């Protein structure tokens, strides 16, 4: 499954890119979390939400080819 993944805030710095094309090894958002956290272990140190096609979804969401994901951490600054 080929996905387009956008990274925001500190996550873009951890990954070293603001956007990537990712081949998902698993089926669900949960699987992708594991996949990305294995590749970029620093992701495990922060809290973030995943949106699929501009909607925050549960970790159980099953991907469709071409889904667009966004990894969003909360920002603290004011």
């Amino acid at each position: 499954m080929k996905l387009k993944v956008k990274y925001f805030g500190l996550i873009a710095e951890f990954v070293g890119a603001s956007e990537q094309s990712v081949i998902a090894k698993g089926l669900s958002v949960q699987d992708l979390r594991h996949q990305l956290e294995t590749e970029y272990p620093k992701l495990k140190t922060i809290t973030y939400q995943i949106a699929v096609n501009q909607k925050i979804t549960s970790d159980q969401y099953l991907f469709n080819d071409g889904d667009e994901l966004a990894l969003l951490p909360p920002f603290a600054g004011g």
Partner: protein
Amino acid sequence: MRYDRHITIPEIGIQGQQKLLDARILMIGAGGLGCAALQYLAAAGVGTIGIIDGDLIDESNLQRQILYATDDIGKQKVDVAKERLCALNPDLTVDVYAEYFTAENAQSIVTQYDIVIDGTDNFSTRYLVNDVCVKCYKPFIYGAVHKFQGQVSVFNFENGPTYRCLFPQPVQQGQIPNCTDLGVLGVLPGIIGSFQAAEAIKLILRIGQPLSGKLKVLDLLTNTEQIIEFTPNQEEVMKAREMSLSKSNSDANCSTVKGVNANEMMSWIENRIEINFLDVREPHETPKLQHSNVICMPLGQLPNLHSQIPSNRSLVVVCQHGIRSQQAIEFLLTQKFPNNLINLEGGMAAFSAIEFTT
């Protein structure tokens, strides 16, 4: 005359302007977001504006906090803000609270206003703002910035989702750094604060579609904007409604005394999170903490020398076992140390144990 350009717009008119003059808005934090939002709200004629912030103006604020001038350095932010806003629009009532927003004062202040704007700079206060607004049934407008990116949303509006519905997991202080630690393009809080003011005005006038259930994410570098949708999570709403405010504050560990364990501190150092360290042990005690931002000051010398401790970043206080550092934090709290204080739990004994095993 003053409000002609509002009254001319059919969606506002004389009635709409009267709604603005009758409105009561609370701005929590008079920093980068607050400085922008406050000026537009005052200019728009929002009749009563409350501002709460315990900070004094620091030179490093002037790059983005545009209510303040060089001569204001060292003055109380809320006092200068009030002076500027009243000069801009003498019709207003501006209530100022020269204190930090805490579990103790939150509810009594929030209940006096219709809408709350969150311009705070740390997660603990953001969860507190959420929980008190949920308890008091007040909508609040969230804004937050990170370097070149900003987020805006409207929470708790007419049974819409809350901050906890979007970010349910409490964020540990230090996990995601704030502006002080990380930097922010000065114009960014101006833009995000202006969006917050616009959302507040829309709520007062009941026009357009508020950003309820929607998170706007802006990136100045790429000129892109995303609108991310999310839905209420009743469990999180109930949690906010039922939790005691002191708990919501400490849950995200907001307040000032926080502990960090050795593993977490190691990850902060590895991730090059910008923090300062204060070692309160005697000079002969080892192992020393190897880091470029360590200041050594034995506990007994703190009362005389504490003003030399840098407060530009969060401060992790360390000793041998985490006991003296706790005492040091308690002392620094009484001195109103102006940044986060974090205790290394288990001290250097625990830290050096993992340092040698990894």
